[in-house]
């Protein structure tokens, strides 16, 4: 299990429909909040980017655009970080089965890079099975001291 902190300030807690509009809006909200808590511009961009990729996974691969399924989106801050939880209602995801996008034979693949980019853009990224069988991801980006 991760050492993600318990959030003490929930800023957004919503259930979003499985649409690309939800991807856009969650990315924008995460980026805006990241800027508001004082993250440098590039870091805020990376938070927004990571949220976008995680939301795409939840909506496209998890919920498969189903109108009957929602994505739980929780954006919070702790004393030292901004934290985002994204949980879909799909059938689960096994990251260990993903091909390595950096392997030479996969460089020309059209897809499969999202999680790798998320990992490089945030300080901590956890993928786990949700209680109901879907996939829950939590990502965390540190707020620089003195911000």
């Amino acid at each position, binding site marked *: 299990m991760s050492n993600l902190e318990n959030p003490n300030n929930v800023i957004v807690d919503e259930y979003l429909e499985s649409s690309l509009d939800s991807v856009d809006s969650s990315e924008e909200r995460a980026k805006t909040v990241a800027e508001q808590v004082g993250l440098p511009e590039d870091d805020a961009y990376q938070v927004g980017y990571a949220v976008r990729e995680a939301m795409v996974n939840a909506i496209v691969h998890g919920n498969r655009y189903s109108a009957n399924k929602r994505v739980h989106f929780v954006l919070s801050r702790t004393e030292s970080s901004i934290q985002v939880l994204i949980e879909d209602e799909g059938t689960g995801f096994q990251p260990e089965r993903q091909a390595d996008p950096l392997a030479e034979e996969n460089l*020309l*693949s059209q*897809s499969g890079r999202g999680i790798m980019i998320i990992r490089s853009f945030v300080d901590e990224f956890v993928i786990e099975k949700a209680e109901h069988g879907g996939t829950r991801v939590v990502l965390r980006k540190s707020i620089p001291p003195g911000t």
Partner: protein
Amino acid sequence: MSVKLTTRQVGDVTVIDAAGRITLGEGSSTFRDSIKDLTTKGHKKVLLNLAEVSYIDSSGIGELVSGFTTVSNAGGNLKLLNLTKRIHDLLQITKLYTIFEVFDDEAKGLASFN
């Protein structure tokens, strides 16, 4: 804003000036359709100018790769021009810098095809 693509011909090289965001959905499909259209029409030297592309997600990156493959399979070459720092960083992270030829000078990019 989704992506806007403007095509111009410089000698035998087709330059695509892209602007906006290349992301899952409309942006990606616009780009994909444009590349397919060019190769169908026999354009084999393609220089993609990304100077005005403000954002590209992993789906958009996938479309760049797909475009590269499509043009290569048709016997041509797709090269990149004027990457922003963020797109440059994404190509580094994904190791695609080893795949694409990248230029920051249009004249040099054009000359590289000959």
